[in-house]
């Protein structure tokens, strides 16, 4: 089922939170119509700050708002939120542990038309590397809602990775979001696929296709940091092969997290991820996912390889 995109869920949830909590404020850098911070602007114009095309100033201003006791959500494209404003995030916000929430919108390859300059394939790596930063990558609109609520209710710097396009809804209102805990979307005993965002559905499709041959567990990892190694190890307990599937560089994201967590255990691990390269323009999202081999077929092949290596 195609439902709301994550960014609409982000904007709508901010409005919901804004009604309850007068301290919620939202900042945008002339991209509010993409981040959907514009919904908050319509509802609470005095609490929405249009910062213009100046992401660095926006991020430091968000720090100031947090210092004044507000709960600022600062949104931009993921590539600018993580890259352009990196120093501001690191120096003022994360060193002091300020209560700033960052929305990295149009993440991964999801801004398919705009090409490499606007596609963030390394934002998770950047954000994970900063001490004190929490990193989330929701799987669908409902999980986005739950995470945005979590961000508003809990103290500290947090980064939310948001997809631009409508993704299938894979959870329901009752699916729990537990901070720091991966969620098993599908049980299986032979192999496990760890994934986040758009790749969770690809993993589920792959698992379905492998039914009868290889029994595949699929795990949605929406909290990328902090993520206890024991959670990864527990989810991988007893399987013969591990696959990590993510719409992100193979460097520094979930692939790195899982490889680090499983080091020394001997279970074969395969990666389905963007290799060490930039994105490019395409006519639609799927075309781009196929070009970068971020498909259920790629996950199937990776599972077969991982399990095969174990035999």
């Amino acid at each position: 089922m195609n439902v709301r995109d994550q960014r609409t869920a982000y904007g709508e949830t901010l409005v919901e939170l804004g009604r309850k909590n007068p301290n919620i404020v939202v900042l945008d850098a002339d991209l509010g119509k993409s981040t959907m911070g514009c919904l908050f602007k319509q509802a609470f114009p005095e609490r929405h700050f249009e910062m213009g095309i100046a992401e660095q100033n926006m991020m430091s201003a968000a720090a100031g708002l947090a210092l004044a006791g507000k709960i600022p959500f600062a949104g931009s494209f993921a590539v600018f939120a993580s890259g352009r404003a990196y120093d501001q995030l690191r120096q003022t916000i994360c060193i002091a542990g300020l209560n700033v929430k960052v929305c990295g919108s149009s993440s991964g390859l999801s801004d398919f038309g705009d090409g490499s300059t606007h596609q963030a394939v390394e934002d998770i790596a950047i954000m994970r590397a900063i001490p004190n930063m929490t990193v989330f990558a929701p799987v669908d609109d409902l999980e986005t809602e739950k995470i945005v609520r979590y961000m508003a209710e809990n103290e500290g710097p947090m980064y939310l990775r948001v997809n631009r396009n409508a993704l299938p809804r894979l959870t329901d209102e009752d699916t729990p979001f537990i901070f720091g805990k991966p969620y098993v979307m599908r049980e299986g005993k032979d192999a496990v696929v760890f994934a986040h965002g758009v790749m969770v559905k690809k993993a589920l499709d792959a698992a379905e296709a492998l039914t009868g041959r290889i029994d595949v567990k699929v795990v949605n990892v929406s909290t990328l940091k902090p993520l206890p190694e024991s959670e990864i190890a527990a989810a991988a307990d007893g399987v013969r092969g591990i696959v990590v599937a993510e719409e992100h560089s193979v460097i520094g994201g979930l692939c790195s997290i899982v490889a680090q967590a499983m080091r020394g255990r001997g279970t074969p691990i395969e990666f389905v991820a963007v290799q060490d390269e930039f994105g490019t323009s395409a006519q639609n999202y799927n075309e781009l996912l196929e070009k970068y081999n971020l498909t259920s077929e790629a996950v199937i092949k990776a599972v077969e390889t991982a399990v095969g290596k174990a035999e």
Partner: protein
Amino acid sequence: MDKDLSRLESIAKQIRRNIVRMVGVGKTGHLGGSCSAADLVAALYFYKMRRREGDLKWPDRDRLIFSKGHAALCQYAALGELNVIDKAEFDRVKTLGSILQGHPDMNKCPGIEANTGSLGQGLSISMGIALGKRLDKSPARIYCILGDGELNEGQCWEAAMAAANFKLDNLVAIVDRNYVQATDATERIMDPGDVEAKFRAFGWEAWTIDGHNMREIVDALDKADTVKGKPAAIVANTVKGKGVAFAEGKAAFHNGALTQEQYDEAMAGLE
């Protein structure tokens, strides 16, 4: 407020003595840019800023953001005079476990309002606080001290544009215009030109004072209160290393070390 200028001048001198004490002998320390701001900081903490004794987190307090975080010694020196920190901490500055880090850390040192040190960010932070305080209808005023070398950073001008755009008349920028940056004169590294005119062009009320004349400083801070509908920028012409004769105007004492003889001479000059 106490406009006893001679009292403020003597506090400024004590701030400079504290700075020299923290720079110490044989180790590097940001003497120049700390001493150039000493009179401004004395006037802010001991004349202008609203604070509540014993309540550092009072929501309506005025705030000083030291955007030129490398000159934190000046702020530490003043916080010691205010008894917000123990002066014994001066002798542990920049040592392992010290509350007085090389650049200010709000979680380690009481009275520090924001972590600064990566230059160019303090005015944006101040602007954010000012936006938040205005939402709360708080009377708090936000003061931000910037270095003139720091104005090389483009983000300062993003903040200048935004603060005027938001008509933040609870925000005051004070440029410590000491004409020397880390390695040479500002005019030889990156000439900032007419700083007052630049702020004015961005929509600020801006004027220039002698940043070592206490009368001019307190008058400027009072005048800033009267600016409505836009932020105020005070360009304070200063001398790097002011009060330490051999260091005045010299880039070598931006972050240089003092010999024992220099240390003694500096202290003697601040009697």
